[in-house]
């Protein structure tokens, strides 16, 4: 095994070795020093210079004490189905006191891009049992659908509920959940561990925990490790894999820290200009592949600093992911769980996952109608603040009533409540029936005749 001895300089996390010319770009190294070992990576390689980027703190290190051992390859992960039911640290080492699982294959954690022409377009529903998602922002196998949240909002509860309740149609399909904690607190990690254990579903789950006090550089590896296992299970072992990544904002901050220490030209808010490409290199590791049974679905969770959806992390994520579930502080304050703000939320792949032969024929139109009517509710509420509720027209007051019930009865549910798509749609019709039939223009006349519960002659031309 090759070794370099005695560094020439240390600048922050960067260690310079002069006189060495055989390092490969991106190669993984172990940096040995008195009393410890740290991982690092070759950041630049030249004829007589190699720059190693140290993962972790460089305080107290002396250049002359350093020895670098080359691992001879970019970082790889030994993957196997036995990893389900286990708990690992952020670099994939067992954390549960058990021996490392026997690897079935060793894979480069950076993966390789899926060829667009082998992808199969995702169109099979994953039922989460949550009305705001199944009814209006349906999750589809192979989709990446992030949760945009804010500090103090129950995104972890929602993410856990999705992971525990997620169901796919079809007999004998194997389902796995991979959970990657990125710089989260011990409490949060414990919360997830306990929720998975209590549900008895730990055996189908693999956890990778990079906690808030772990080295930020390791945080850049954790999601890639989780996704490497996910790709193996999905595309080599035919699992339907759901990957939860929380919290991507911590990940992006680690990347910013690294980029700043490298002295790179900063982009918006100090994040590097390649943040989009970097995020895409993870988010795009999902989907379905032709002629293979498995699928890889991602639910990244991210907290929007200052609840600002235009902050670079949610903004660039939104440009890559296939929609977003946005949580609202206002709804949370009003006691609505899950506090999903449906108007900015979106599932781009929903259109092909729902409807006649997949859920119910009225599903697409009901969802469109709920969106349109709830958007109108916002206008009416704004007006009511100014002129008072009593001055509103009868129709506008019906909208206020609809808005209340929509939030309280349709969006709200218990943290362990599973609602079938049928139940969600029936509830939706109950709520929509508070509006005059004439207002339901996104629904066909037939659908209104069939499902509407109010009086058809009221405000419309039906019957």
């Amino acid at each position: 095994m090759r070794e370099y001895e005695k560094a020439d300089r240390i600048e922050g996390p960067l260690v310079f070795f002069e006189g060495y010319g055989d390092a490969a770009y991106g190669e993984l190294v172990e940096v040995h020093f008195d009393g410890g070992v740290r991982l690092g990576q070759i950041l630049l390689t030249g004829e007589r210079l190699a720059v190693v980027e140290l993962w972790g703190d460089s305080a107290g290190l002396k250049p002359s004490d350093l020895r670098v051992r080359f691992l001879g390859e970019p970082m790889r992960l030994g993957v196997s189905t036995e990893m389900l039911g286990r708990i690992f640290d952020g670099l994939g080492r067992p954390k549960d006191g058990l021996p490392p699982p026997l690897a079935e294959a060793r894979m480069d954690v950076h993966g390789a891009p899926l060829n667009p022409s082998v992808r199969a377009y995702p169109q099979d529903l994953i039922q989460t049992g949550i009305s705001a998602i199944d009814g209006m922002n349906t999750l589809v196998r192979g989709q990446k659908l992030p949760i945009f949240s804010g500090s103090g909002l129950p995104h972890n509860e929602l993410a856990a509920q999705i992971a525990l309740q997620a169901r796919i149609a079809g007999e004998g399909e194997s389902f796995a959940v991979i959970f990657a904690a990125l710089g989260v607190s011990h409490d949060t990690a414990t919360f997830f561990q306990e929720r998975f254990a209590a549900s008895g579903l730990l055996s189908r789950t693999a956890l990778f925990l990079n906690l808030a006090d772990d080295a930020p550089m390791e945080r850049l590896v954790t999601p890639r490790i989780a996704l490497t296992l996910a790709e193996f299970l999905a595309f080599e072992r035919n699992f339907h894999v759901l990957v939860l990544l929380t919290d991507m904002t911590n990940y992006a901050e680690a990347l910013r820290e690294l980029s700043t220490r490298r002295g790179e030209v900063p982009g918006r808010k100090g994040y590097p200009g390649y943040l989009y490409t970097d995020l895409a290199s993870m988010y795009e590791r999902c989907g379905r592949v032709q002629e293979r049974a498995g699928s890889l679905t991602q639910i990244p969770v991210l907290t929007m600093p200052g609840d600002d959806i235009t902050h670079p992390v949610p903004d660039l994520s939104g440009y890559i992911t296939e929609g977003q579930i946005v949580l609202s502080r206002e709804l949370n304050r009003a006691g609505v769980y899950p506090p999903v703000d449906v108007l900015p939320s979106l599932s781009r792949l929903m259109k092909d996952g729902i409807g006649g032969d997949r859920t119910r024929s009225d599903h697409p139109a009901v969802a469109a109608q709920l969106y349109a009517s709830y958007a109108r509710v916002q206008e009416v509420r704004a007006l009511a603040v100014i002129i008072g509720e009593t001055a509103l027209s009868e129709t506008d007051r019906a909208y206020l009533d609809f808005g209340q019930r929509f939030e309280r009865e349709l969006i709200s549910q218990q943290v362990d409540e599973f609602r079938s798509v049928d139940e969600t749609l029936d509830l939706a019709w109950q709520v929509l029936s508070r509006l005059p039939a004439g207002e339901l223009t996104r629904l066909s006349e037939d659908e209104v005749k069939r499902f509407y519960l109010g009086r058809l002659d009221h405000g419309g031309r039906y019957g």
Partner: protein
Amino acid sequence: MKPIGTIIEVNGPVVEARIREGVGLLEQVWVGEMRLAGEVIALKHDEATLQVYEETSGLRAGEPLFGSGELLSLTLGPGLIGSVFDGVQRRLEVIKTEQGIYIQRGATTEALPERGWRFSPSVEPGCHLHSGALLGVVSETPLIEHRILVPPSISGTLIDLVEEGEYQLNDRIALVRAEDGQEHVLGLTHRWPVRQERPHSGRLEPGPPLVTGQRILDTFFPLSKGGTAALPGPFGAGKTVLQHALVKWSNAEVIVYVGCGERGNEMANVLEELPELTDPWSGRPLMERTILVANTSNMPVAAREASIYTGITLAEYYRDQGYHVALMADSTSRWAEALREIAGRLEEMPAEEGYPAYLPSRLAAFYERAGRVRTLAGEEGAITIIGAVSPPGGDFTEPVTQHTQRFTRAFWALDRSLAGARHYPAINWQTSYSFYSEVVAPWWQQETQNDWLALRAEAASILEQDARLQQLVRLVGAEALPDRQRWVLEVARLLKEGFLQQNALHLIDAYCVPERQVYLLKLFVRLFELGRELLEAGIPLLRVRQALDLPRLLRLKEAVSNEQSAEIGTLQLELEARFKALEPTGEEG
């Protein structure tokens, strides 16, 4: 391939090499033992800076560099249509069979499928051929007759031309002797550097409209064949769905779709859908007129930078054959970001928001490759460019949107709040504009026998009044407004929901022929006038509203198909009669 130099430093996609033999700026090279595709982007003495299109991990100093002797170029010839390429013209279908589900590094594929083509000559030996002149034709798809032209840099006397028959791509088709006596062997294909505009013999004014079947575009913000349009919007506002609708429905003869830093699943959608869909203009599968360039966001960033040029060069090649080509680029912001990323690696001085100072000139050069031209062969050809822009945070004042706006003449602004209310296409009719309205007006007058400009001016004025009234409504509520103004709100709603909104997934409504667009618009505008007259005559709003029957009119766009367009005219007569019946008569006093 022979080594021309040695790598001396690797820093991400930017590699330094020491050169032994002459190499030109922008020459295509193969880097290292893995033969990663790259391009020379700077030269200094015997050192070259290379931009590598593939992930460079594992590359070391001391590995060899191979030259190609030419600039980054495409192979142009029959077989392009229906292909799916990455950003540097590697066929993804071939990579799939050779490498499995992932794209491994160092992949090389033939640019065109190896097969025979039936060539029919169009000229006789002995004639003089100028560059770009027609040699003969190949039937590429049932929709596209591929015209084999003399490459732009060659002209002279035709010494020899093969007879009609089946030929391979590499077969010799013709021999041309130039003025200087040099002889050129011509085949079915030739190479062309992507960053160089292909010549033509002169620009023409923008022509008839590019009919897209999307009402808000065709009627309010039309695009002319040979024109340019920018499509900016925040995420989730429907840029991609709209781009796909344009790929499917617009009446261009050839479509080049560049997925530049796009989502893999969306690309899969395009790849699955296009072969199944039929072109409304010809009834043939859409794939028979489409070329896809797919460089998804996780594919190497340098190839993303090249993909835009690959796309436009393919478009120019078909333009030169006398076709009207539409190029959709989704998204040009990802291309600009690739520029920024590479500029950062080269430690160039950043200008606005970290973008290099040459961003505007690169954007301008790209959009200037659009246009309607007289080709070298004397035909008329055109390229229309529709570039999606993804402004960070939906902020249109950012550099890419701003500069794109300067170089394009139609601006289709997507709006987050419209998208939030599921008003699709979420094009904001107040901030969008098009400079082509006057240009395409004669076509519409002729085609639909209506005073198109007056009609849309009338409709635009209703929408404009509505926008002003909505501010008032937000303060006092609609109930507080006088009947005349409430009538404006009523008809504006009809226009917004019954005309501007269009469901790209609806069987009937996804595509709306010009005739149906005009029928609908005429109906709504006419009802507005009649209603206003009634209100002026003192008829209460409630009764006019009843006669209007809003729910039925809102569903009209999805109830009446393109073929039945005339039924809207019949309905108009019926409704006009109903309105007339409300007019105050002796009885009602």
